[in-house]
């Protein structure tokens, strides 16, 4: 199938701004699903609220556009009640880690087989540029007009600590790597977290003098390195990309199947 067979073409051009990284993530996701040869009937996408959340409207899957921060909770109900479905949950950074932070760590703790993609643009875009839990110290936002004094989460560290069994990071510049990691995340038998640094030229870029979309992609190229690169030793501020954790661990739906067997014996 072609990539366009996986989208709802009537909604294009999409609503994202020119140069928005979220479009690149959608693009890579569609290529990944195509490469894996997945059946649309088996695909479910559940999103929350925000710019990122609009992604579920564009894919021709079973799609659910839910509440701010709650996408993983809805998705948990879907996956538990029909474990054969492939459930992908794209989230914005505020969506995943502010209002949805609790759902995020608990989904990771359960190790339920779903793919959480944190589309990290370091800003609340839809509401017009307020700082997010991933904006970081010193960043400018409409609610941080004097510079942000909130520190940011490290999504990878958080996901690992919470128990996610596949944890990776990349950027919208590294598109081949992005497709590869999405495929790995989808096929992983457990809770997968993929953080994708995604440019928001409109709100983050403009307020933080980061330039336009092209400049922001160049920055991703320059300021990120593969895990284990020597460059990181010389320059600790560089952000690492790649797979941080990938491990076999009992998956929640399969554990529940075992629990059903136990309960039936007792009956």
């Amino acid at each position, binding site marked *: 199938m072609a990539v366009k067979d996986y989208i709802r073409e009537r909604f294009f051009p999409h609503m994202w701004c*020119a140069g928005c990284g979220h479009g690149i993530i959608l693009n890579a996701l569609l290529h990944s699903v195509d490469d894996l040869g997945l059946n649309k009937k088996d695909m479910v996408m559940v999103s929350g609220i925000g710019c990122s959340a609009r992604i579920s409207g564009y894919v021709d899957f079973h799609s659910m556009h839910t509440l701010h921060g709650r996408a993983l909770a809805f998705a948990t109900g879907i996956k538990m009640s029909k474990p054969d479905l492939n459930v992908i949950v794209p989230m914005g950074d505020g969506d995943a880690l502010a209002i949805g932070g609790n759902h995020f760590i608990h989904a990771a703790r359960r190790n339920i087989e779903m793919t959480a993609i944190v589309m990290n643009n370091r800003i609340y875009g839809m509401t017009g540029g307020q700082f997010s839990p991933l904006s970081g110290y010193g960043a400018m936002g409409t609610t941080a007009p004097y510079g942000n004094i909130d520190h940011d989460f490290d999504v990878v560290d958080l996901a690992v600590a919470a128990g996610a069994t596949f944890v990776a990071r990349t950027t919208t510049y590294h598109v081949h790597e992005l497709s590869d990691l999405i495929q790995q995340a989808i096929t992983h038998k457990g809770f997968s977290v993929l953080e994708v640094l995604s440019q928001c030229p409109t709100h983050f870029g403009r307020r933080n003098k980061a330039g336009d979309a092209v400049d922001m992609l160049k920055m991703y190229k320059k300021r990120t390195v593969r895990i284990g690169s020597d460059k990181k030793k010389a320059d600790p501020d560089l952000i690492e990309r790649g797979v941080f954790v990938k491990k076999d661990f009992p998956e929640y739906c399969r554990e529940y199947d075992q629990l059903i067997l136990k309960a039936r014996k007792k009956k």
Partner: protein
Amino acid sequence: MGKKKLYAHHIDSSWCKGCGICVAFCPKQVLELDKNQKAIAARPEDCICCRQCELRCPDLAIEVICSKTEVSNE
């Protein structure tokens, strides 16, 4: 693997928002923005079929059709 040969750039100008990402990162400077700020393949003969423009396009507006790649039946 033989060298891939370009058949065509399909650029949907109604989807293109003119962000310039494809132009900036094309290793062979094949693409340009036209006077309407829409991407066009100005030098298709230089294309090496790396498909970076297709994959990086946030608007899903570019499709690079090469030999050895599956051609959409549309």
